[in-house]
């Protein structure tokens, strides 16, 4: 601690340069945090996907439907415990930018399949017996200021009603919470029966099945059995674990994780050069002073340590502030009004961020520090 003032005083020597370097580092780590939250949001559900759940969809594309009759056949397959149908509704609430997922489901089976969706017993009972009843995640309900009993009109973009209208009316009978961080709290769920009977076309067809299996270790085997059950039929299936399905869904717009990692890597490399350059300049312009320190008795390692400490202070302040700011901004909520459900910085990313701070500090400072440590006193004093 007795050297802290010396380190701090040296950093204050060129205030503008130090502030600009700290700001560069701050921006890099802010970006790291924000992109981490966005990546998390795009891979939403992958981390919390049930290891005992499979997704069965049309072999060609998710947009093509499967017969609802498949459910009973799937449930007959050895290793399958239960199958639940889901369909993409794709409606608009008030305006197109108010995006969120709306899914017609079989309520009792759905809640049984997803124990991470927490609903009070009273709300559950009300939903089961209310044909036009719907439940919404806490996040989406708070976003639109919904409360139980509200009438929610959704305009269909795919599923026109039998009477030709586009508007489907729902009564909000429950607001669910997620049991885990990362559980999607932006879904709007309603009765499949109400949907199937009311739609003009596609009766008896569903989007995909969620299948619970008895032994997660046998996921590949059960998937193959399901797909072979419907092989050579007009609607062949593709089965895969829920996590893989969600990842593939996120990858429809590109490998988001790779894109984010590439951006962050490029930014970090640039900032590493900025920080390294700052430290190199700081040492070069202080050659004489460093030589004086050695002349009065500081060892090579001592001088090396002082320079390295400056690098650590610089990067810890910038990086720490960047991560803290990212956390603060992310905690204010999804800036896209629902396009990024489960928007948060995963703990893993925060830990990686802290590790990166120390790595960057070391890499940026080590060469100038070694150079300072190797300085020959008599030569340097002559400069």
């Amino acid at each position, binding site marked *: 601690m007795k050297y802290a003032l010396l380190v701090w005083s040296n950093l204050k020597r060129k205030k503008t340069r130090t502030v600009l370097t700290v700001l560069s580092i701050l921006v890099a780590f802010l970006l790291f945090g924000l992109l981490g939250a966005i990546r998390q949001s795009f891979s939403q559900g992958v981390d919390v996907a049930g290891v005992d759940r499979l997704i069965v969809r049309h072999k060609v594309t998710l947009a093509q439907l499967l017969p609802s009759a498949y459910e009973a056949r799937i449930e007959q397959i050895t290793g399958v415990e239960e199958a639940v149908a889901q369909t993409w509704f794709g409606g608009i609430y008030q305006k197109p930018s108010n995006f969120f997922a709306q899914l017609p489901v079989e309520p009792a089976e759905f809640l049984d399949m997803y124990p991470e969706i927490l609903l009070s017993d009273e709300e559950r009972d009300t939903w089961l017996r209310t044909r036009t009843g719907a439940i919404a995640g806490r996040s989406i309900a708070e976003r639109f200021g919904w409360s139980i009993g509200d009438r929610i009109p959704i305009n269909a973009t795919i599923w026109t009603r039998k009477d030709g209208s586009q508007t489907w009316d729902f009564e909000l009978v429950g607001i669910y919470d997620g049991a885990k961080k990362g559980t999607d709290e932006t879904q709007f769920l309603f009765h499949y029966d109400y949907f199937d009977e009311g739609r003009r076309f596609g009766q008896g067809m569903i989007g995909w099945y969620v299948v619970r299996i008895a032994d997660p270790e046998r996921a590949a085997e059960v998937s193959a059995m399901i797909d072979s059950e419907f092989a050579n039929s007009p609607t062949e299936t593709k089965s895969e674990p829920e996590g893989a399905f969600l990842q593939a869904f996120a990858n429809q717009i590109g490998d988001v994780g790779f894109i984010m990692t590439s951006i962050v890597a490029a930014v970090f490399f640039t900032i590493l050069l900025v920080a390294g350059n700052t430290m190199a300049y700081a040492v070069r312009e202080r050659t004489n002073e460093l030589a004086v320190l*050695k002349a*009065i008795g500081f060892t090579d390692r001592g001088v090396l340590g002082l320079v390295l400490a400056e690098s650590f202070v610089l990067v810890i302040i910038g990086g720490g502030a960047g991560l803290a700011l990212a956390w603060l901004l992310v905690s204010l909520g999804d800036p896209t009004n629902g396009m990024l459900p489960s928007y948060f910085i995963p703990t893993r990313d925060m830990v990686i961020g802290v590790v990166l701070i120390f790595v960057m500090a070391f890499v940026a400072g080590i060469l100038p520090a070694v150079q300072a440590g190797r300085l020959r*006193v008599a030569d340097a004093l002559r400069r």
Partner: protein
Amino acid sequence: MNETVEDGAVSGLVAVRGVDKVFKRGSEEIHVLGGLDLDIPEGEFLALMGPSGSGKSTLLNLIGGLDRPSQGTIEVADERIDNLSNRKLAAWRARHIGLVFQFYNLMPVLSARRNVELPLLLTHLSRSERRKRAEIALDIVGLSHRMSHFPRTLSGGEQQRVGIARAIVTDPTLLLCDEPTGDLDRTSSGEILDLLQALNREQGKTIVMVTHDMHAAERASRTLFLDKGRLSLEPSV
């Protein structure tokens, strides 16, 4: 080789024996010092004079452990320093040597007191003890009223006083001054020389001072002249 010096010299605090110093510049070898012998008794105020490039500062650096001889031995207070490792030599310097530079070499980002405290950071002294000792050293050089001032707000003479306070704060065995008045006007030079003389006479500090200034050298108890790597009692003509 250095007969004039060896005659009558007594073995003292510093013993330089057969020291050569060769600098390499590319393929060229520059012999700065050749077979040099020198004894400095404890309590002496020695002035080293000579033309530029004669090796005065090189000799000072060798005695202060800032550089190593190409050949020969150097003993200070009965301890050979020419064969110490870098780490041990640094520790030795911290314990035994006080350095005063021509251009003061103060840390511009630290106050006068903090500058003087620097060598004490290498000791196990507490913060308050370090502060106390730095204040005493600044008091000795007559700058107790300028402790919190930064170097840029001090005159050249005052900065050199801070430099001297930094050199004496650890109570070193030997005070080495490289052109301590080289950057000062006549009045300030006189004050600095008064101070060095007082440190020598009143506190018994052994001082080796490199200087070009004959008036400065007159303050020393002995003056040696260095030319072409050899010491003599008289300047070469």
